């Protein structure tokens, strides 16, 4: 993997690759013990079984972006509008996740270039509150689409989310409406939007901007759907087949355009972006 750029190192602080005390990770698919540095170099894909680990937003940005990344909406920070407490207070949960993830919220948005082409890029991170969408995720995504619209940039959003964030109640649900409004304006102005669905993408995020893209790409074996697997199993009182709600299943059903291996993601996006520039993509080139 390309070395982590300086700007990124400064911005993200602790990283999954070098900041973690654990040197080893166990592949949750095949059980193999993996040296974390090797895993990072392999884009967080198990070298033995190809299992795609859930990737951290900053690692994802480093993997996709050519160079610098100018953040949008980074100053928007979570509040606690409901004064929420369950087993723990929302404030405490946020503090824990900030500490653990080195992120301020579940999405990082900004402008950058991919394959030499300027783009607006949003990347969600499941390690922060399960990638749930509250007011901050909604606001940052809306600003991303507004900026992209203004500058006529194509927009790419990498999703990973358990849905709307319960701790913000209806204000979280309203983010589906807010992001939809921003996406609609962006699309109606003739801009290109590509979503990249990663494991897992469910609930309010799949029911809003994830499935409003012109082209929908998914990482292999990602779990994608509206209702969570457990909810469906409880409702129908039977076990679902393993393949149900996987990226491959969705491709077969016609819900998404393509399933990609993580190592090919950047080149696939470059190829797609080339069509938005009106330039002739190199004939016959393979990703």
């Amino acid at each position, binding site marked *: 993997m390309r070395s982590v750029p300086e700007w990124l190192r400064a911005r993200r602080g602790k990283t999954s690759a070098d900041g973690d005390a654990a040197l080893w990770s166990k592949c949750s698919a095949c059980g193999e013990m993996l040296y974390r540095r090797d895993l990072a170099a392999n884009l967080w894909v198990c070298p033995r079984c190809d299992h795609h680990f859930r990737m951290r937003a900053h690692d994802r940005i480093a993997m996709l972006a050519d160079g610098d990344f100018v953040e949008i909406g980074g100053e928007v920070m979570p509040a606690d509008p409901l004064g929420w407490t369950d087993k723990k207070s929302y404030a405490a949960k946020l503090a824990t996740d900030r500490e653990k993830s080195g992120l301020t919220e579940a999405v990082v948005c900004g402008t950058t270039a991919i394959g030499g082409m300027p783009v607006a890029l949003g990347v969600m991170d499941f390690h922060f509150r399960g990638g749930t969408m509250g007011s901050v995720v909604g606001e940052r995504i809306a600003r991303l689409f507004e900026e992209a619209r203004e500058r006529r940039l194509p927009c790419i959003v990498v999703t990973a989310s358990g849905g709307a964030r319960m701790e913000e109640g*209806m204000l979280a649900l309203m983010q589906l409406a807010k992001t939809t409004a921003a996406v609609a304006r962006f699309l109606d102005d003739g801009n290109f939007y590509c979503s990249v669905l990663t494991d897992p993408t469910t609930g309010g995020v799949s029911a809003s901007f994830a499935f409003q893209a012109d082209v929908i790409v998914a990482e292999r074996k990602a779990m994608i759907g509206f209702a969570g697997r457990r909810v469906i199993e409880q409702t129908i009182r039977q076990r679902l087949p393993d393949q149900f709600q996987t990226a491959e299943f969705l491709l077969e059903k016609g819900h998404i355009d393509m399933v990609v291996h993580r190592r090919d993601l950047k080149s696939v996006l470059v190829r797609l972006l080339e069509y938005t520039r009106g330039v002739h993509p190199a004939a016959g080139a393979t990703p």
Partner: protein
Amino acid sequence: MNVIVEREKGLLELERRIAELRAANASQPVDMSGEIAALEAKYAEIQREIFGSLTPWEKVHMARHPKRPTALDYIARFDRFDELHGDRHFRDDPAIVGGFAVLAGRPVMVIGQQRGRDTKENLARNFGMVTPEGYRKARRLVLLAERLRLPVVTFVDIKGADPGIGSEERAQAEAIAQCLLAFTRVRVPTVATVIGEGGSGGALALGIADRILMLEHSVYSVASPEGAAAILWSDASKADEAAARLKLTAQDLHAFGIVDEIIAEPLGGAHRDPERTISAVLTTVDAALTALRALETDELVDARYRKYRRMGAWENERREALEARR
């Protein structure tokens, strides 16, 4: 078990006794009017006591009351209704009803989430849980309304979108996402009324509008209280606690600026006097449509954008959000 239904049992018994006494009073020489008046006073007192201030969890039960008026009960009181069916792809979803209608002399497109009013109808309507075809039908009707320049009136009443295998196979998430897009973009006035329970994205799919109205004892939540309790405490029986935390009442949502107007219900809930409730709702919807008609189309769509663009509470607006809660 519905806690409101349970509470009503005693009241209904009292009602029956008062009616019996009245009948007896009319046919017998003994004057029982004193007794009747005492019973009536007691009845009124109990009613105030048990319905005067409902907890959020009690409101959830009120919203789910089997006798609470449903979308079709409201639509039946329009001047005219011509139902349209189907998503043009797969099937007609009876959990969404919609079509051309006339309200107070004004032609509109009406779309509602429809739960059953008894067991048989509930089975036919999938307990009001909408499948992708329902959302695609709604989207189709919104696009049609736009072309014919008809305002859109919706009724929100759904626990949640259908979580079945078939719905996932037929892209429930995409159906809702595209329905949201249609309601966001549409260039005609839209008025949504939450008449019962609004649950999650499945409700919001008919809930994006220029004016959002809500019945006093309706609820509207990011997740069902049972679902939230199961996730938060792994214990669905803590649903009452979850209901209180989720801030799902009309009063909470009005304070957050999500709901524009609360429509009062008769003491004891909408089902105690459906006629009055339905009239109040239709009058308010009509007034909202009249107000919206004053706006130019561009103004209307811009105002809708700005309204949704503002929603949420984040750090640099924390104080504002806290104040809104008080």
